[in-house]
């Protein structure tokens, strides 16, 4: 290629594990990097996981190492609460418009938490998937980066907002902050916008939201997390009691032409992990896994074999047809066992739907998407992590490294 790229900067959109890895790899190769994250913090969905398969380590360690690398690298500029609102140009010469949402808290914040103490009203807590609420002045979660509070726009212009502002000793709160827009010149773009859980409301036969003790796998991660709504105790949402019989339903919305046509790839392993969470907390508890077939991808067969060796886990080859409400409101899982042909109706204390991964809410502006909404890499614009299709963390990091390499080549050739 004869034209020298006009800009040598790489833009990374999305600050989950995929985007963080892509930004670091590109910057450590010497490229200038701008990392844009819609949420008030980096970390993405892995920050909301309790532990990672296959090693069952805490997501904190992985994220912490990466945050240190970002802090040490002067080539990476991070913008949180920022989104791409427009993109034009071609490889080597893109003009990107970035729009920011006010945080109302300046970098002077020491994360002391005084503002949250005086905040009275509560807002929805997306980190806990709606299982809990949070104060209108909040830290998104304990592993936030930047470690800086946010004041919710709902209190701006109210006496409560004034009280919150007054509580800050270092005067870090600015309630007059307005949305802003600025333009960036970049040579390559990496979309790492990740995923969202498939909406269980669409799975009407499983009655999530209608039967209290039917939850999703992402909710299970929050119930099992020490910083979650139950402080890490897996409890029945209906009564707060410990569950004795738990069902995990695989392919809830995946591999289904009425929902997501593809296999979400990680949910079999995630459910085995959830079975382990339950069995560790309650050694007497029984866990039934309902599956079409188990897909323990890649090198992770050993994880499956370990789960299979646990006598407390039963494997039922069946896609349950529906969940009914039992006499005391408990979920009753109904279907046909395809090995025995028995038609069953089994009551449980807790049912977990292994909902799949759907491409992130807003299709990234300017990116080419496949039939399912995942990013297709092309000249100058690349996908990384789950934005390209369902992947686990290690595969997301691999895909991010590949995207970084291609982006660096694009801005140098």
């Amino acid at each position, binding site marked *: 290629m004869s034209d020298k790229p006009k800009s040598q900067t790489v833009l990374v959109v999305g600050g989950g594990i995929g985007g963080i890895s892509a930004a670091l790899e590109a910057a450590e190769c010497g490229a200038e990097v701008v990392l844009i994250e819609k949420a008030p913090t980096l970390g993405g969905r892995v920050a909301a996981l309790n532990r990672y398969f296959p090693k069952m380590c805490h997501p904190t360690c992985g994220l912490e190492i990466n945050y240190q690398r970002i802090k040490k690298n002067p080539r990476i500029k991070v913008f949180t609460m920022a989104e791409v609102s427009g993109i034009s140009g071609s490889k080597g010469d893109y003009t990107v418009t970035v729009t920011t949402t006010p945080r109302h808290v300046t970098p002077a914040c020491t994360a002391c938490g005084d503002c949250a103490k005086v905040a009275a009203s509560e807002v929805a807590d997306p980190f806990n998937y709606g299982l809990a609420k949070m104060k209108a002045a909040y830290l998104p979660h304990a592993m936030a980066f930047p470690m800086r509070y946010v004041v919710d726009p709902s209190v701006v212009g109210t006496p409560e907002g004034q009280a919150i502002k007054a509580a800050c000793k270092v005067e870090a709160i600015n309630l007059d902050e307005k949305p802003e827009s600025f333009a960036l010149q970049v040579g390559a773009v990496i979309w790492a916008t990740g995923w969202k859980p498939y909406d269980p409301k669409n799975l009407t036969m499983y009655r999530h939201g209608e039967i209290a003790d039917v939850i999703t796998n992402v909710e299970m991660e929050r119930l099992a997390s020490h910083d979650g709504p139950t402080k890490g105790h897996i409890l029945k949402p209906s009564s707060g009691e410990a569950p004795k019989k738990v069902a995990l339903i695989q392919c809830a919305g995946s591999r289904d032409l*009425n929902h997501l046509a593809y296999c979400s790839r990680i949910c079999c392993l995630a459910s085995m992990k959830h079975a382990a969470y339950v069995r560790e907390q309650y050694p007497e508890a029984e866990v039934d896994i309902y599956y079409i077939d188990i897909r323990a991808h890649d090198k992770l067969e050993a994880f499956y074999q370990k789960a299979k060796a646990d006598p407390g886990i039963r494997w039922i080859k069946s896609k349950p*047809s529906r969940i009914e409400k039992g006499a005391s409101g408990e979920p009753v899982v109904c279907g046909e066992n*395809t090995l025995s*042909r028995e038609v069953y109706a089994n009551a449980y204390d807790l049912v977990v739907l292994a909902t799949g991964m759907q491409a992130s809410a807003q299709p990234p502006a300017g990116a080419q998407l496949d039939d399912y909404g995942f990013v297709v890499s092309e000249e100058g614009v690349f996908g990384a992590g789950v934005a390209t299709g369902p992947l686990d963390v290690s595969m997301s990091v691999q895909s991010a490294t590949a995207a970084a390499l291609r982006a660096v080549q694009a801005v140098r050739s």
Partner: protein
Amino acid sequence: MNAISPNPSRAYDLNFARYVYENIDGGERLRMCMQCGACSGSCPIGQQMDHGPRKLFMMIRAGMKEAVLTSNTIWNCVSCYNCVVRCPRKVPITYILHDLANLAVREGFDAAKKADNARFAKAFMWSARKYGRTDERLVTGIYYFSFGLLEGMKRGMGNQKIALNMIKTKRMHLGMPHAIKAKDELQNILAKAQEIQDRHGKGA
């Protein structure tokens, strides 16, 4: 074109799955079945079926022609479509079961000809062809007496009370059977349907 084995006494026909895929109404989507069991688990008649749709579909793949075409699963489906709306592979299960029932009769399987629902369907079609509607007395009569004189009388007597109540509430009438006005038009429609089905059955 695949021809189904002409000898009904042969239990297995290795060509059977392909025959079904190519000739049975909705059969081409049967290839997509992944044996998940959502259909049989959804079926309100499941307990009255010897195999249920999922297992029946596996038997088709295994070439178990005779067992499939003598199964009661193909007759007991009540077309509720519970399975169809839930099937993750969009297999038109109901169509397939009904067309297999048709095939079983065409292939001359005794179990199919004697199936309860086959007898009823025959009586129903007779009335529909002749009068353009079902005449309750004649349809039930033909259906009951298809089991023989004695059995027919027994069933008729057994349901006397229901019959009287139906007459009282004008759900069944006495006197000559009523035919619809444009009977010949309906007969044209039925003839056309038969023609389409025959053509379809030959994979056209």
